[in-house]
């Protein structure tokens, strides 16, 4: 899987209670791209992201990751390739200690314990959380939880990163560290976020979602100057732009 492509064609998803969360989503994200998915609350960002590693699978439409169709037969391969950060870190930190939590993925990959330890320490160091290794997750602050959750994803050494609101709840330093980390990552990155300044710093492409559809797909500069589009999708230009004008 050298080509870190993600492609969706005609994706439509309805939750069991009848809510139509995605309708006819199509896009194609190429190798090494950093793409932001933005949109108001309930626009369908999280639902879309959950499709990218097969957490949700819909009847209509298709997702392909690195030229493999997402389906039950390919799930293991897909999930090893796609690292997924969930919106609520409490959902992702289920082990008794930070170390064991970050080690959960590598251990499932069947790595020997020495390599697991190496990966865990590297991943924790990358997010600046080495000192938390022995702590139980419930004793962490919100931002620390998110940092550790990110380490858990990185420790799997995925070739594609899918992140749901990674900067939510981070202090400015941690947020800056996260942005630098994501910039240093040469693989494909897909980030759903309300942090539009992060989008400006990081992404070369933006997908704007509204009510389960993709309203626009383009460069950040073009999207953020289209005031009519932003208003329609419950968005605003990034703060750093508003101050400038």
């Amino acid at each position, binding site marked *: 899987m050298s080509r870190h492509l993600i492609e969706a064609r005609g994706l439509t998803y309805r939750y069991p209670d009848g809510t139509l969360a995605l309708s006819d989503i199509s896009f194609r994200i190429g190798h090494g791209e950093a793409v932001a998915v933005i949109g108001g609350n309930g626009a369908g960002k999280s639902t879309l992201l959950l499709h990218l590693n097969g957490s949700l699978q819909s009847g209509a439409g298709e997702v392909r990751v690195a030229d493999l169709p997402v389906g039950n037969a390919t799930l293991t391969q897909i999930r090893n390739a796609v690292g997924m950060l*969930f919106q609520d870190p409490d959902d*992702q930190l289920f082990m008794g200690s930070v170390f064991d939590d970050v080690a959960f993925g590598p251990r499932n990959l069947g790595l020997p*314990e020495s390599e697991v330890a190496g990966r865990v320490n590297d991943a924790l160091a990358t997010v600046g959380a080495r000192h938390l290794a022995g702590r139980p997750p419930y004793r962490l602050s919100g931002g620390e939880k998110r940092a550790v959750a990110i380490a858990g994803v990185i420790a799997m050494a995925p070739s594609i990163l899918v992140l749901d609101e990674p900067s939510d709840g981070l202090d400015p330093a941690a947020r800056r560290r996260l942005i630098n980390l994501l910039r240093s990552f040469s693989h494909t990155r897909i980030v759903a976020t309300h942090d539009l300044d992060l989008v400006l710093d990081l992404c070369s492409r933006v997908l704007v979602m509204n009510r389960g559809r993709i309203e626009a797909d383009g460069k950040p500069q073009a999207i953020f100057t289209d005031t009519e589009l932003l208003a329609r999708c419950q968005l605003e230009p990034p703060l750093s732009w508003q101050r400038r004008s």
Partner: protein
Amino acid sequence: MSRIDDTLRELRSLDSFAALPNTLTRLDPRAKILATFFYIAVVVSFDRYTILALLPLAVYPVILAALGDVPPSLIARKLLIASPFALMIGIFNPLLDRAPLVDLFGMDIAAGWVSFASILLRFALTVSAALLLVATTGFHRVCAGLNQLGVPRILTTQLLFLFRYAEVLAGEASRMGTARELRACGRRRLNLGVYAGLLGHLLLRALERAQRIHLAMLARGFDGEMRGPHQLAWRRTDMFFLVLCAACFALARSIDLPRALGHILLGALP
């Protein structure tokens, strides 16, 4: 809903001492688990009118608390909170068992009072031993130890999940409860309908959370088996601790130390 927050604080307070670096926290959890069980078995094996011979056994929790840096006040508070049940059943003994058993300077003490005191003493000893096991080991390692001792992994995994998410769910319950109280116009107690609605919503959220956690686990390669670390190593100190404990408990079980001590002291008195 402050009761929920209190309970949570209680739950966490014990576990935090296990992170302290000391001799006890470094011991293999299996050694401490086995010692605790042996201790409890010895304590409850005395007959129901025993008080004196039980006293030397108090040395175990005292030493554990001292070595483990666990404040005695914490254990005492927890004992107090847990005591009503032992009190409730035990208090019938003095009422029902009135035959005089002990003659204390001309005062007859009924057998019921003696057995009641014995019940309370056993309660304090066994419960503080269990509390100190967690406080000096940490729940995480207790579970790892149990696992190595043959407890099915499905239960130890379950225990860790429960411990982890008790906080999250109790937090949700507490917030829902506060929201209800704010709108309940002073009616503190829950009637059945409101209660069922509250719990039903809490349960729905719990189920949704479980689903999300499962997804997060699958995303990191979960295939149904929890692979824990296998870093428990039985060392000579663990063996030493266990043998020492067992020997002391056996000694306390076979010799009535306080009476012997009293005999010597009384003999030494003019």
